[in-house]
């Protein structure tokens, strides 16, 4: 058991306060000077079901969930269904303990609520404890909580116990509870945490467990944030004051943050009848000169295909976000996957004229959100941010200074009435909104209500004043101008983009990935290099227009590359091959699509087993697909 990191997993049922308890715990550790990273696993269920959150804490920066974990706090699932063995879902009552044993590291700690969990119902429990050298603390947390009057507080009792075993001072947690809890429930919670702490200190041997909390210090002040927070704040700082949406997991998080804050910021949030309407409303608002956004997850985004095409054809600035979850169809609503890449790149009829960004980290999610608005409004083009349930909900510490930026409410190439007067018009005064020329393909726009700006926006092909036109020369001129924007955007991003190369420049092997796998891949790269391999990684956050030059240069510099992505059909590898037209023979794939994000060790294992040793992967958690022609 290593002392340099604590990976604490709190498990129970949905509705047992797992998320809020873990958030406080993570923040307390961050405030103590540690780097933290959370990973949550939950079912599509309001009450009960196998739920856990991991909090990984280390003195060194952490970018990913870890490999397994070393401290389990198993609370009872107060909403577990009847323990019928014949039911396909099995005995839910013991799941918070049983389901979490496989990933618990050797020498790890188990604290479980013996008031609700009966370990004797778990096959071979005692044997497994002995084999793995686990340290077990069975404590009747429920009774402790009952004595304080509220059974739900057993999670706080469990935190007290955790602190006693790992050496975390209670004051750190208490301080956070004071910020978060109303007076009425604060005192009993503080009291029960102390009771749990004292009980363990007095009656149990805490030194037997070799798991303790590390100590660390930050160079500068940190904040604990999720990808959803970062995307929403980026939008707000770009002056986005209009959002329309329809609830769907996990996109709902961004929609909620925006909806709760836009009224006070003098903005407008609209929850509407469906996602077709949601995207259409964002287009309507943007057409009037307002910075607007919408978004959804896979199924809802499918409904946005039609308005997305309208935004492309009418060159209406638009930001859409797509929070991926496991598909197809309803799929696994609360599980992460990166299988909507092709959906977002190609949905809607005709040639795609759009920008697609996929941030890799919480800090980059803020960056990508700001870039999305800048590109959308400067170039009058729909811009999508794709991310997933992993990035949307994981919490990590980021320097506070990262967010200390100036707002940018600029709406791009939009003319004032004075400027409109100097622009070309038809004889009867219609403004040439869609001129054939235009710097970087952009023809500046007017907005309704402006004098001298009237034009027709239409989903049909159109002439400079916006009137429907099927003239071949006009068609080619308009299409070519719209396409030119993509070249200009590519050049912009090549100058100052979101690609992140990691590891030794002269490495022999490469790992190529996109989006939320960045941190996990980088941790794997570190370990591989420590193990004597020579590996670097490239995380591509710009998917359309595709950064072909940068990826080509990266692949030219390595012998072979492993493409890591969370889907079953290697979509990112396919995109890379299509865009490069070369290097296909270098690209093998490591895929995962079982509903859980990669652990760093799985990438290390996939890399060494397949690329170096040409062996077989153990188990079926991940899948290897060899390079074309292999």
């Amino acid at each position, binding site marked *: 058991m290593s002392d340099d990191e604590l990976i604490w997993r709190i498990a129970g049922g949905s509705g047992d306060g797992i998320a809020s308890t873990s958030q406080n715990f993570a923040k307390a550790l961050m405030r103590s000077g540690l780097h933290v990273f959370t990973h949550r696993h939950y079912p599509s269920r309001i009450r009960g079901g196998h739920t856990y959150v991991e909090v990984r804490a280390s003195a060194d920066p952490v970018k990913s969930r870890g490999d397994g974990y070393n401290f389990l706090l198993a609370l009872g699932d107060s909403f577990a269904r009847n323990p019928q063995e014949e039911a396909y879902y099995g005995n839910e009552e013991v799941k918070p303990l049983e389901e979490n044993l496989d990933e618990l590291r050797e020498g790890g700690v188990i604290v479980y609520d013996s008031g609700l969990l009966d370990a004797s119902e778990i096959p071979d429990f005692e044997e497994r404890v002995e084999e793995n050298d686990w340290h077990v603390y069975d404590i009747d947390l429920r009774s402790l909580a009952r004595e304080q009057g509220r059974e739900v507080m057993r999670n706080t009792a469990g935190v007290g116990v955790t602190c006693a075993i790992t050496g975390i001072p209670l004051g750190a947690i208490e301080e956070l509870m004071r910020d978060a809890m109303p007076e009425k429930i604060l005192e009993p919670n503080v009291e029960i945490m102390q009771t749990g702490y004292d009980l363990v200190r007095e009656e149990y041997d805490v030194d037997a467990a070799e798991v303790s909390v590390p100590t660390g210090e930050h160079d500068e002040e940190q904040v604990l944030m999720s990808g959803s927070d970062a995307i929403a704040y980026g939008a707000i700082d770009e002056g986005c004051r209009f959002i329309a949406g329809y609830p769907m997991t996990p996109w709902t998080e961004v929609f909620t943050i925006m909806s709760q804050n836009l009224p006070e910021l003098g903005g407008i949030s609209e929850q509407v009848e469906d996602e077709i309407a949601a995207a259409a409303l964002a*287009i309507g608002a943007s057409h009037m000169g307002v910075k607007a956004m919408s978004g959804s997850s896979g199924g809802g985004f499918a409904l946005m295909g039609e308005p997305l095409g309208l935004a492309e054809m009418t060159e209406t600035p638009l930001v859409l976000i797509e929070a991926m979850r496991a598909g197809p169809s309803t799929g696994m609503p609360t599980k992460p996957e990166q299988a909507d890449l092709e959906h977002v790149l190609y949905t809607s009829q005709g040639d795609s004229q759009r920008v697609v960004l996929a941030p890799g980290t919480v800090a980059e999610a803020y960056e990508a959100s700001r870039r999305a608005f800048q590109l959308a409004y400067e170039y009058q083009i729909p811009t999508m941010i794709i991310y997933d349930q992993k990035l949307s909900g994981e919490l990590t510490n980021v320097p506070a200074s990262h967010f200390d930026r100036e707002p940018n409410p600029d709406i791009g190439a939009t003319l004032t009435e004075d400027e409109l007067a100097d622009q070309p018009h038809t004889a009867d005064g219609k403004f040439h909104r869609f001129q054939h020329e235009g710097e970087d393909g952009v023809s500046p726009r007017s907005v309704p209500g402006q004098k*001298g700006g009237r034009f027709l926006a239409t989903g049909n092909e159109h002439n400079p004043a916006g009137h429907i036109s099927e003239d071949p020369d006009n068609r080619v001129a308009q299409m070519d101008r719209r396409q030119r924007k993509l070249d200009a955007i590519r050049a912009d991003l090549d100058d100052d983009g979101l690609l992140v190369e990691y590891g030794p420049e002269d490495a022999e092997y490469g790992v190529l990935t996109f989006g939320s796998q960045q941190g996990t891949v980088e941790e794997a790269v570190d370990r591989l290099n420590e193990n004597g391999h020579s590996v670097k990684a490239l995380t591509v956050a710009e998917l359309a227009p595709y950064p072909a030059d940068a990826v080509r240069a990266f692949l030219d510099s390595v012998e072979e590359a492993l493409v890591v992505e969370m889907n079953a059909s290697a979509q990112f590898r396919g995109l890379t091959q299509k865009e490069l037209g070369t290097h296909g023979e270098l690209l093998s794939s490591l895929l995962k699509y079982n509903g859980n994000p990669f652990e760093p060790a799985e990438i290390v294992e996939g890399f060494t087993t397949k690329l170096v040793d040409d062996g077989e992967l153990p188990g079926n958690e991940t899948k290897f697909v060899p390079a074309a022609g292999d």
Partner: protein
Amino acid sequence: MSAFSAIGEEREIDRDEYTPDIEPQPTWCPGCGDFGVLKALKGALPEVGRTPEETLLVTGIGCSGKLNSYLDSYGFHTIHGRSLPVARAAKLANPGVEVIAAGGDGDGYGIGGNHFMHTARENHDMTYVVFNNEIFGLTKGQTSPTSPKGHKSKTQPHGSAKTPIRPLSLSLTSGASFVARTAAVNPNQAQRILKEAMEHDGFAHIDFLTQCPTWNKDAKQYVPYTDINESEDYDFDPTNRADAQELMRETEDKLYEGEVLTGVYYRDDDRPSYQQEKQNLGEMPDEPLAERYFDGDYEWERSYDRFIDKHK
């Protein structure tokens, strides 16, 4: 100072201002009812004092969608069935602009039916004109949601098994605060109703009977018609919801029996518009949002100042 000087401009407006030089002649078939909508709009807009540059006409797809090409104003020719969500956001973003949405019966009552229901429910301050010709025109004569039961077409060769939708009743039930029916053959009434609809503060829905001489030759030309607000046969108060409901049902049935009833069926002038409701709740700014992006003095708040402390 407003960045939108066309809004609220006081001046004489000539109806010819709405005729574009590019396409002064519509391409609708001779005898098409759509000409009636265009004429009524060109008549009503100067009456309500709205110039082409303070008017946004949002259309769907179909013969009706071509209205944008023949009426000169700010225009947004959207996609099939989606004019309403685009139009209502435009109104929220800049309430000073006169927003009119228009589309056909397939567009509004079929593919866009969900948007119709919800836009009516929310009572957005806008006018919605549905060109109802009981047929799909631009795709060459298929049965539409308002085609009568038994209507034969290339896609329903044995006749439609479906009872037609009840547009007026649906509108009232959904929450529209102004519901009317008029017909292309009755230009004076059409212009008057359009004017009343634009002046109404809330969602004003006009089911506009537009005969299709090409694909629906069997259908009536919507003559003779009766104006329920003026006919002595009807003693009718459009502010009475129960009466409106009853007469709407009768009107919808009689259309298919050859009797055309038209007029304003329902109006509730007391109900606040959606914008007002939202502003009362503090969910929408008092100043038009669109102005803010042209106001160099506006102080934009930073996320850092508002949120960062709670993440520490």
